[in-house]
């Protein structure tokens, strides 16, 4: 038996194709018996190169491209992107669009955290949690499909506003769904707090102290669980986040349990935000987007607090129809890296849940894609329809003027 030798260090591969991860990623755990003594992270299995591709696409097309960086944060990247372009243009969007943007952003946070909670249960071998969380997530997706047009990838963001309006009935539907969700969140929280076995598994596991979190520049729930009080929505308000009441939960333990609790509390805050926005939306009159002519030369930074942390977009424009440089930094790029500290010293099962607790999103981490400048682009039918609509819309606008 290879394990008989205590001193012997064995390499346990997690990935690149491993049920722990929905996406390819290669962690090499160096273990001594069950104890992890080292970790190598190898990425690149998900490298598509969206940054380069963005340099050859029209500003409106880039929107669809950044949406496809990641499926779970399919609103976060467009959100940061439109913030960025609007900063370059010096544009202020209509009030109604602000509320709708916030609703979309928070819907995504809820279903993403719900998804994480379920998967965390699955990784602990607790499939019942997985099934229950995903069952509760399903009505939200249906609501998204009804009001935004798709279960995911809903393409609501648009430079200068939003693409689809939410009428009063839609606003009420949100309030109703949120009221139904709250008791379920309470139930889940109680279940996690009361379950001694679950606590035994989550407490102490994968602790990331504040000092290390600062040094690794962690963001999002990871940072907030380690006592770093940051949240882009509060620090640099955009959309409707400064117009509604909510708080940023912070804990200091830095272990997986704290991360779980932070995410549960964030979902509750999102419910609050959505309810307030949906109410305010009924009173806010006006247009849902403004027209932009062209993007002037300059540079801008757009940020959005995605479910996993700060999404960062930097665009340099030299005028014209395409960005000169488009830099994208997803939250997982900083967070996955913290595993090098958090996993070492624990055991293999701890490593499994710690790697998962980052809520890693590798497709975000490895964007980038090159396309010939004049390359023919292939769209999905959904995108084609969206682009068609967009074109009709702009032509109508042009005629009216």
């Amino acid at each position, binding site marked *: 038996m290879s394990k008989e030798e205590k001193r012997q260090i064995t390499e346990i591969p997690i990935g690149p194709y491993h049920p722990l991860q929905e996406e390819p990623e290669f962690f090499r755990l160096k273990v001594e018996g069950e104890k992890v003594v080292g970790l190598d992270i190898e*990425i*690149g299995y998900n*490298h598509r*190169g969206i*940054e*380069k591709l963005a340099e050859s696409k029209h500003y409106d097309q880039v929107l669809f491209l950044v949406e496809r960086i990641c499926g779970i944060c399919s609103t976060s990247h467009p959100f940061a992107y439109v913030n960025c372009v609007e*900063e370059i243009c010096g544009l202020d969007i209509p009030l109604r669009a602000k509320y709708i943007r916030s609703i979309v952003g928070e819907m995504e946070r809820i279903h993403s955290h719900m998804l994480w909670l379920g998967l965390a249960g699955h990784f602990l071998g607790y499939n019942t949690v997985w099934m229950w969380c995903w069952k509760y997530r399903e009505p939200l997706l249906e609501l998204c499909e009804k009001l935004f047009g798709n279960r995911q990838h809903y393409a609501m963001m648009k430079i200068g506003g939003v693409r689809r309006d939410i009428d009063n009935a839609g606003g009420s539907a949100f309030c109703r769904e949120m009221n139904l969700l709250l008791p379920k969140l309470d139930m889940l929280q109680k279940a996690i707090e009361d379950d001694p076995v679950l606590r035994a598994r989550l407490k102490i596991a994968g602790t990331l102290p504040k000092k290390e979190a*600062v*040094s*690794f*520049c*962690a*963001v999002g729930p990871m940072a907030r669980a380690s006592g770093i009080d*940051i949240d*882009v929505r509060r*620090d*640099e*308000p955009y959309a409707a986040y400064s117009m509604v009441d909510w708080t940023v939960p912070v804990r200091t333990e830095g272990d997986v349990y704290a991360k779980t609790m932070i995410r549960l509390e964030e979902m509750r805050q999102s419910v609050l935000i959505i309810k307030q926005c949906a109410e305010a939306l009924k009173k806010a009159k006006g247009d849902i987007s403004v027209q932009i002519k062209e993007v002037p030369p*300059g*540079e*801008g*930074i757009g940020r959005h607090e995605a479910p996993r942390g*700060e999404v*960062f977009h*930097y665009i*340099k424009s030299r005028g014209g129809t395409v960005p*000169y*440089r488009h*830099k994208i*930094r997803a939250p997982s*790029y*900083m967070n996955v*890296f913290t595993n090098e500290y958090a996993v070492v010293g624990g055991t293999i099962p701890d490593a499994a849940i710690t790697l998962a607790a980052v809520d890693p999103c590798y497709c975000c981490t*490895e964007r*980038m894609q*090159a396309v010939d400048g004049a390359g023919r682009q292939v769209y999905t039918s959904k995108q084609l329809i969206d682009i068609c609509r967009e074109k009709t819309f702009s032509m109508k606008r042009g005629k009216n003027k």
Partner: protein
Amino acid sequence: MELIELLEKNLGKKIKSLDRPREKRIYIEISPEDLRFAAEFLFNSMKCRFSTASGMDEEEHFEILYHFSLDSKGIFINLRVKTERKKPEVDTISDIIKGARWIEREMHELLGVNFKGNEELGNLLLSRDYRGPKHPLRKK
């Protein structure tokens, strides 16, 4: 305004130019030799969070922007460093900020900038038998 004064006091002559196009965005250009000093000042003394770095091909030279976020005020302080095209090279900051290790490897791989002092520059994203353009983010 006190923020600008603080920056000017501490970085002094090292600042080549300071630009504030919007209230929450500050762009500071410095020369590559002063990068480590400025990064250390921003990260350790000002308690800024290192967000990321973007390298870009400005045709005649390469430009690297280090984005630091001052979260308590919601302000972004960006350090701009220019390096010549023939021999693109800057000092590493990965020993000061652990979070900069991957982004330096990525820039080395995709843009071909050498980071002096970073030991682990090598393949991060691309496969060893990748056969496309050598540095895909270069414009020519």
